[in-house]
């Protein structure tokens, strides 16, 4: 294991590293011991608080329905935001200023605003309109908020994907007499879709995480909200948080792993002529996947 920052360790450096390792290990053990002692002082390690998670009711009544709602909202938001994002991304590349301008304003506007504000707005809008029953209103509000924000992020991903294609693709399309629309739909979009797939999958992680806002603020019964009902029932606040956090971590790690697998595969396959967009490019404000290609020395390219 070598890095640019340090040489392969000699005997002295090896000794020093062992000292550091032992010191850090002691610090870490101290921290863990402290957390565990505080938890046991508060009685949070009692088996009675953890037992519910080994039995079916906690899962079938609370956690699984909550997870289902989280996934439903995330999937709906992605499915609706994707075509919208594609339209706005392409509109931003238009030759006509009257198309490009408004599209840019809309995209930049919704990217500048917190998702929570959009959700609150949608919730009140649906409440005022009165045509949506209050059972489904939180779901509608959450999905609307997520769609407005993520469509604008996806628009940037689509735009970056199309711009990443070599200019020769457009020129060749022009040379064989394709019109602008044909160039876009039959040459540029199909190629850029493969380039931006990893970024699209990574954006799902952001969407999944943002659904929790609906649970905390809009009474949408997703995973975080279901955790509240569960903890009220079994009086196990800390264990319920830990279990829910683990569910989120596993779910999102699966998505990021899938995204980086997709990215590696696409890089290797080289079907598309453009570069492969990883999540940290293309307007995603919170880079979710590892930046660049990971190598064993930790240096990204």
């Amino acid at each position, binding site marked *: *294991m070598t*890095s*640019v*920052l*340090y*040489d392969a*360790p000699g005997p002295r*450096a090896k000794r020093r*590293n062992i000292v*550091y*390792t032992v010191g*850090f290990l002691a610090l*870490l053990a101290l921290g863990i011991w402290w957390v565990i002692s*505080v938890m046991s002082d*508060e009685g*949070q390690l009692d088996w009675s608080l953890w037992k519910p998670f080994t039995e079916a009711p906690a899962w079938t009544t609370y956690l699984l329905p909550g997870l289902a709602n989280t996934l439903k909202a995330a999937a709906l938001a992605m499915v609706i935001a994707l075509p919208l994002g594609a339209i706005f991304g392409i509109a931003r590349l238009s030759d006509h200023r009257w198309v490009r301008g408004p599209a840019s304003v809309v995209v930049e*506007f919704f990217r*500048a*605003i*917190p*998702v*929570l*504000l959009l959700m*609150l*707005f949608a919730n*009140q809008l649906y409440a*005022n309109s009165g045509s949506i029953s209050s059972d489904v209103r939180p779901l509608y509000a959450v999905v609307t908020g997520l769609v407005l924000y993520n469509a604008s992020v996806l628009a940037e991903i689509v735009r970056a994907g199309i711009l990443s294609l070599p200019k020769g693709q457009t020129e060749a399309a022009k040379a064989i007499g394709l019109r602008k629309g044909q160039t876009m739909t039959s040459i540029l979009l199909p190629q850029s879709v493969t380039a931006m797939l990893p970024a699209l999958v990574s954006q799902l*992680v952001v969407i*999944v*995480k*943002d*659904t*929790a*806002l609906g*649970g*905390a*603020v809009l009474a949408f019964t997703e995973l*975080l909200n279901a955790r509240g009902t569960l*903890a009220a029932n079994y009086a196990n*606040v*800390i264990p319920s*948080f830990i279990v*829910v*956090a683990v569910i*989120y*971590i596993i*779910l999102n*790690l699966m998505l*990021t792993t899938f995204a980086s697998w997709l990215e590696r595969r696409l890089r290797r396959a080289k079907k598309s002529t453009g570069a492969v967009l990883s999540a*940290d490019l293309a307007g995603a*404000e*919170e*880079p*979710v996947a*590892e*930046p*660049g290609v990971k190598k064993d020395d*930790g*240096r*990204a390219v």
Partner: protein
Amino acid sequence: MFDFLEGYDLLGAFWVTVQLTVLSGIGSLVLGTVLAAMRVSPVPLMRAFGTVYVNVVRNIPLTVIIVFSSLGLADVFGMTLGAADDFDAKYFRLAVFGLAAYTAAFVCEAVRSGINTVPVGQAEAARAIGLSFTQVLTTVVLPQAFRSVVGPLTNVLIALTKNTTVAAAIGVAEAALLMKEMIENEAQLVLISAVFAFGFVVLTLPTGLLLGWVGKRVAVKR
């Protein structure tokens, strides 16, 4: 036209938003830099700790972290961060704590990507004149790395500004909470929302432009 604003402390709420952003921004910058240093350090255990921290924290929704700070850390463990009696201060500090802990993971990744932009020769030359790992990192690599990650860090800061609204989930009196209260009590939904949206555009747009300009100025020309 704007008489619905009467009786509401709009500027006060946005001031809390700014305070949340600045304080947790500083906190996450410090913590994130330490984590980044750990992730490139020669000690495998520290690298592992940094990696685990980043991968765990950025996969948990911020809302879960903030709500946990309130219901878990404060209510169950009695962690008050030095503000036991003052409820507003307690939840404000818990929100800063949660925001800093969450954002640090993203700062860490940004700084680490900056470290990777520093040419290998820089660190090799530094080692050749006999600098230790800490000296290489603090005097040669990090200063160059920071100058090249102003852009990514700006994105993190803007995301953080927007993320401060999550503090509304534990009742911190910032902009999103006031907006929720106002649209429930007043009739002008669109106008109120527009005011708050404008507020966030005012906060994030100049930040992006200013730091974008700074980033171009300080970038190391190679």
